[in-house]
């Protein structure tokens, strides 16, 4: 099964083509790019490099969040466009899962965190058990201090590897709150990468967890601000 995966959940963007047990190619950028301009160019240049045509793809994979609302929509809309034109399925992958899998070989705790603004992070906690990554804390939008407390509770004194676009922004607070435990993932696995989304998507495809252009949607986690305010007022 040949799969094209894309990600635009954060300021970084990437595209990858993979098949079972083989990554054919990947393009990753994290440098002052507008996703709306670049995402399709990245897909195009990757396919040209691989001498492949988009019609050869059996499915499209996309990181569906959490992350930047606009970035998620650009990636999802792009994937939906491909899927509509070629009548192919879509496989959505959690951006946090994608990040956690890029640190798969780390055998203590893995904590991907994405900037959710308003002093919050979108986060989850993972740990490898045997050959699979298990979610220890489910994904959500957490206040930094409450997230630190949850981590303390679940990890004891084990090491926690932080990755994601909020890592550097909040690392001092994590280092302070979790003395001796917090580690920063190296740059090459700190941002989400489409290659890992492709790997997860292939596994999901084999389990039949497949969607299409109609059903694939972002996992925003949060309601639109206006809707939150409205509900607040109604209470």
């Amino acid at each position, binding site marked *: 099964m040949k799969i094209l995966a894309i990600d635009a959940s954060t300021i970084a963007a990437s595209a990858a083509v993979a098949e079972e047990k083989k990554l054919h190619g990947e393009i990753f950028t994290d440098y002052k790019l*507008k996703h*709306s*301009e670049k*995402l*399709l*160019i990245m*897909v*195009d240049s990757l396919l040209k490099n691989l001498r492949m045509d*988009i*019609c050869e793809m059996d499915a499209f994979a996309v990181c569906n969040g959490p992350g930047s*609302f*606009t970035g998620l*929509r*650009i*990636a*999802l*809309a*792009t*994937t*939906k*466009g*491909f*899927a*509509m*034109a*070629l009548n192919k399925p879509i496989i959505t992958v959690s951006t946090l899962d994608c990040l956690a899998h890029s640190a798969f070989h780390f055998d203590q705790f893995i904590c991907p965190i994405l900037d959710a603004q308003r002093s919050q992070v979108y986060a989850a906690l993972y740990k490898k058990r045997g050959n699979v990554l298990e979610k220890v804390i489910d994904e959500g939008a957490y206040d930094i201090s409450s997230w630190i407390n949850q981590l303390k509770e679940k990890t004891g004194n084990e090491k926690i590897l932080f990755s994601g676009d909020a890592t550097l922004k909040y690392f001092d607070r994590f280092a302070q709150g979790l003395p001796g435990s917090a580690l920063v993932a190296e740059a090459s696995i700190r941002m989400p990468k489409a290659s890992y989304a492709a790997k997860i998507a292939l596994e999901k495809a084999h389990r039949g967890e497949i969607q299409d*252009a*109609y059903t694939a*949607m*972002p996992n*925003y986690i949060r309601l*639109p*601000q*206006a*809707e939150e305010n*409205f509900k607040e007022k109604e209470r």
Partner: protein
Amino acid sequence: MCSVKILGIETSCDETSVALVENGRKILAEKISTQIEIHKQYGGVVPEIASRNHLQLLPFVTQAVLAEVKTGVEDVDAVAVTYGPGLVGALLVGLSYAKALAYAAKIPLIGVHHIKGHIAANYLRFPELVPPFLSLVVSGGHTSILLVNDYCDIVCLGKTIDDAAGEAYDKVARTLGYEYPGGPMIDKFARKGRGDAIDFPRIMLQEGSLDFSFSGLKSAVLNYLNSMKMKNEAICPEDVSASFQEALLDVLCAKIDLAAQKTGQKKIALSGGVASNSRLRERMAELAAEKGYRLYIPEPKYCTDNAAMIAAQAYYELMDGNISDIYLNAVASLPL
């Protein structure tokens, strides 16, 4: 004549619309999914909510259009999409989708300017209309007088320097307590009021100018309502609606008349959401009859945002060789 079928996509504000149009003139199928009911409770369009809905709706709306003519993407010759002006987050959804669709289907992508689309709405309804002609585009976001020399050669002769006409309608309506969207409510209540009850200003700007300014008129209405409240005097919303509307329409009519005199054009095509206002249509018809102008106004459905008009303009862009590349981006404020 060969048949060129263009799939138009429009998501610049709160309508999710897709249409299939043949040779810029004939609508083969179209769908407009409006989000008015969703945004009503917020008193106006919420960009984040509009964007989320566009993303959810686009594949369904596309499929409904293609199914109606029992065709598939493989029978489409080009994809057209609004790339600006509009709400950037909303535009980005339609644009990203359209780019991917065109790329995967290996057909040309045509980015269309939203205002040019509004003008082209007239081509769908009036087969005899060909450039040159004058166009007045009046909506919640725009108020412009344009000289359409040719399908793709359009010159802006005048535009609003502050509020758009539709914006003034919405703000006055909100102050009067009418529910969103307020324009149609003013149209309705003005029918029961006197247009000469209150003397609101007609702001013409300098002699000979084709530009508009509506923020002064809006403020005058708000000041009037405030002063009546201070004096504890009752207001008549019908009279306020009618007097505001007449003041605004006096300006629109005077300016389009001036533009016709300046350019010597006798054909005038209207479009944009405010062009569905019943009193505007009456006033323009009176002006046209008096001065011997030929007036074109599409029915309300084609005055408001729709994808058919985008596909119509795209046909002429395609004929002119204006094909977009995959770098095409959404632009919130885009000059003609």
